[in-house]
């Protein structure tokens, strides 16, 4: 939510640019839901749902000292759906695991999102012809951000979190996918 562009009541009061800018940066006037989304966007707690190779890249290496997800505040990796906001589906979803993917998604508390990491989670990936693989997390849970790659680099997963944050803040994500 790019608040600095919206009109702000302080503009009628004074036309000193510095004061207006200072006011706009510190005081946000928006409906409550937008403000909450502003807070939620910056402090997502991922549910580490490590299934396969993407779990090593998308959950472990993202947290390690080089790619450090903690710089963005998303490093609190919860394993229980009760305390998680984002379900990071990292790896191949097999038919034996599918009911638990859905069950865990259902058990997450409400404002929840899903990031599908890796081509297996997007569309079955190299195992799409297999008899025991669900071709994509989309078939089970509504997915918000797809991260292509087999496995995607950790910085791609960090970009996924950035895009999810833009989506939560209500910025137009599709056109801004640079």
């Amino acid at each position: 939510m790019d608040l600095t562009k919206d009109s702000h009541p302080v503009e009628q009061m004074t036309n000193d640019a510095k004061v207006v800018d200072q006011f706009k940066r510190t005081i946000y006037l928006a409906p409550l839901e937008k403000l909450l989304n502003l807070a939620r966007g910056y402090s997502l707690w991922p549910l580490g749902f490590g299934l396969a190779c993407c779990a090593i890249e998308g959950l472990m290496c993202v947290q390690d000292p080089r790619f450090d997800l903690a710089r963005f505040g998303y490093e609190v990796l919860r394993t229980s759906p009760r305390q998680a906001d984002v379900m990071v589906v990292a790896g191949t979803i097999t038919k034996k695991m599918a009911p638990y993917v859905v069950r865990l998604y259902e058990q997450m508390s409400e404002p929840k999102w899903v990031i599908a990491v890796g081509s297996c989670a997007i569309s079955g990936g190299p195992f799409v012809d297999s008899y025991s693989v669900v071709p994509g997390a989309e078939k089970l849970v509504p997915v918000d951000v797809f991260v292509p790659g087999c496995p995607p680099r950790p910085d791609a997963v960090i970009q996924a979190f950035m895009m999810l944050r833009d989506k939560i803040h209500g910025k137009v994500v599709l056109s801004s996918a640079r």
Partner: protein
Amino acid sequence: MPGKEMTVIIEEIREKFAGIDVDEKMTVTVPAADLLSLMRELKENPEYDFNFLTSLTAVDYPEHFTVVYNLISFRHGHTLMVKVKIEDKEEPAAPSLTPLWGGANWQEREVYDLFGITFTGHPNLRRILLDDDFAGYPLRKDFEWEGGRV
């Protein structure tokens, strides 16, 4: 004490067990009936001392199943491949090696799960990799399934 040479071992086994035939790469093919006795002999006889069962798998040939065992003797460093041909493709069955090696337990369950070969004498023969209500045995050549690439 260095064990006998592999060729000597093969000759001795050939005399002890009639139904054995050995091909040029020294893989022993034994009928299912005396598989257990051959394996016991290979394991417990101090000269052979094949005390390690590395791999146990199966192959679905057009006219028969073959269960393939690989043994290693840690002391002498020998390796031996033993095969069992199962002609009956409807209810394939083979004697289980769990009395001899605990390691065979899970590998036999995997072969049962993916091929449908029942191992008589196995303490807990259930599916291990697939769901219990999965229909069919995937690694058989006549297994049809429709993949996700719709």
